[in-house]
């Protein structure tokens, strides 16, 4: 099923002592599930029994923090630290002795421009490229991958790199784009900046058949 739960792995568990299930999710009162968060120090499925036990967000008028640092404190178990997160500065995730940028990943649902959600599969197409309405999405440091006709959020999906050119930095191309539908994975490993990262794209494709005909 293309809509397999993104969190399905959370359900499965073996009787191994010390394994921690950890998830932090953002829930929007008007739009529902807005996303999940993870930290290298407290990862889901870790075997160190590390967990987030409590959280506190200071009042916005607190003089303890600069206005730009609207941070949240996370109390931890088995880590001997308190985490500060969601800072609006340029901090990066510490991971051991090196600093690493926060890795953000988004996976789209099925993308098939020829069908509605109520309809069946629309037929083979040749997916050509993604064009970004706002220039230089690729220059911003985003990476794009795709998979074809798979359960994108499940195990075993084969993700393929999309291609870019040096001149057209607002395009990402499908090297092998024959499919009924695709899923897109957006990855951002850049340093945090306080701006919108991506808000959509224009999908270019060739339709390989007329509905009712055999796919070519």
């Amino acid at each position: 099923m293309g809509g397999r739960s993104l969190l399905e792995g959370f359900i499965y568990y073996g009787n191994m002592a010390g394994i921690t299930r950890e998830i932090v999710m953002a829930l929007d009162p008007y739009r529902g599930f807005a996303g999940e968060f993870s930290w290298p120090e407290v990862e889901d499925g870790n075997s160190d029994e590390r967990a987030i036990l409590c959280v506190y967000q200071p009042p916005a008028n607190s003089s303890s923090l600069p206005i730009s640092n609207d941070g949240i404190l996370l109390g931890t178990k088995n880590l001997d630290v308190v985490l500060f997160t969601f800072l609006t500065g340029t901090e990066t995730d510490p991971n051991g002795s090196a600093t690493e940028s926060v890795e953000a990943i988004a996976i789209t649902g099925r993308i098939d421009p020829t069908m509605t959600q109520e309809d069946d599969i629309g037929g083979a197409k040749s997916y050509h490229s993604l064009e970004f309405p706002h220039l230089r999405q690729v220059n911003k440091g985003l990476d794009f991958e795709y998979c074809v006709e798979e359960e994108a959020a499940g195990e075993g999906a084969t993700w393929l790199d999309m291609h870019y050119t040096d001149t057209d930095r607002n395009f990402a191309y499908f090297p092998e784009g024959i499919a009924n539908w695709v899923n897109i994975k957006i990855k951002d490993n850049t340093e945090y900046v306080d701006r919108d990262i991506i808000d959509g794209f224009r999908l270019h494709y060739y339709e390989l058949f007329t509905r009712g005909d055999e796919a070519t």
Partner: protein
Amino acid sequence: MKNRLYRGFSGIDRTEGPIVGPQISLLRSKNFIMPDERGVLRKRGGTTKATLLGDCWGIGGYQADPTSVGIPGVVYFIAYHNNGGTAYVSKSIAGASWSALSLGAYTSFGTAPMSFAQIANLFAIFGGRPAKITDISSGGVSRLGGGGPTAAPTVAASTGAGSLTGEYSWKYTFYDSTSGWESSPSPANTTLSLSAKNGEISGMSTTVDREGIDKKRIYRTQLTGEAPWYHVADVTLATTTYTDSTSDASLGAVAPTEGDHDAPPSSTYIGESHEKRFWIADGTSLYYSKIYDGSLYNLEYFSADRKLVFNQQITAVKSAPRLGGLLVFKAPGYGIDLVRGRSSEDFEIVEYYPSRGTYHQQSVVVQDDMLFFFDKTRPILLKNGQISPTFSDKVYPIISELCKDIPSDVPYVWALWDNLREQFLLGISSISASSVQWQDATSWGVGVSWKDSFTTVTWQV
């Protein structure tokens, strides 16, 4: 070549099937945030960390008074952590470094998610025996409330001549002359009949399980032997005897009522501030302090006469003036009650929402007219007392599968309202015990291998 423009992201959607523009639904959004309704993705901010040894069971904020007009007062972060059995309460400004506060000899903390509350300069910690901080700059942590003398004083007629003729009875209390806190009085001795004698008091206790006690206050009836008891004198805590020759005309203020200045429940993790009182849960009882009228010691006075009793064990409490009062949660399935009223005379319990509840005090959030909490298997959002249709349609299908088989033995659940992004954050952690096996949601009772849906890493049983 054809094209279709997808103009925004519509959030996580488990619905199967192709996407119809202009919006793109997501199957996963890890560390991307959707901060508003424009359908854009932003990255979450980075993270730093500060050393805080041991396991941190609670973080709160002590709001200090402002020092200048128009400048907000400093918020000191307060964290309770336990390192190898040693308890710490630490403070920090801006969170980069933490310093441990001194813990009073009569404080006692556990290791479980705890709650905090503040009224005026008194910051209460509900993490075992209730404790308090009243001076964040230079003070430490001390016990909230305390017990009074448990035995009546021994009183006998003086050997020589004295001033008292009549029937008399005595009590005494423990007293902190700095803060003004005074315990409930001791039991009264058997009424003593005197004829031109003094009352020789002995056997007063010199030990008390609360910091800061430096005196005892002695009280006596007038010559009728009838209540009330009036103030005779203050003596040091170490003093065990006193000769009372005070005339009735020279007696002072009336003693505290018996049982009116009792200590709060001895062990609780559920506490809240509401209507200028502290509220503390103990089993099916909810105790409330005296009202704050400018005297901090009133917030440390509890009584068997100031409690409300519920039909099931209390699992969480939350002040919600906009929703009508103080919300009192019971376990999932047993409902949520509301305490209305502003004084002891008119506090009443009414049903707020039946059949729901929570095991997790830290998951309860009140924001405007919204109530958010974690029920047995999923978060619940009530708007003006009604289940949110957004959550029913968009969140439950995901969360229900996720949380169906969380073991009830070691789950840690917390939530807060993120002011910046105007979203609820919900965190769930659970650490397995070797004898506990999570279940495959599709094959009830069958243990399976752990596997991560994203990385596909598998741990075999």
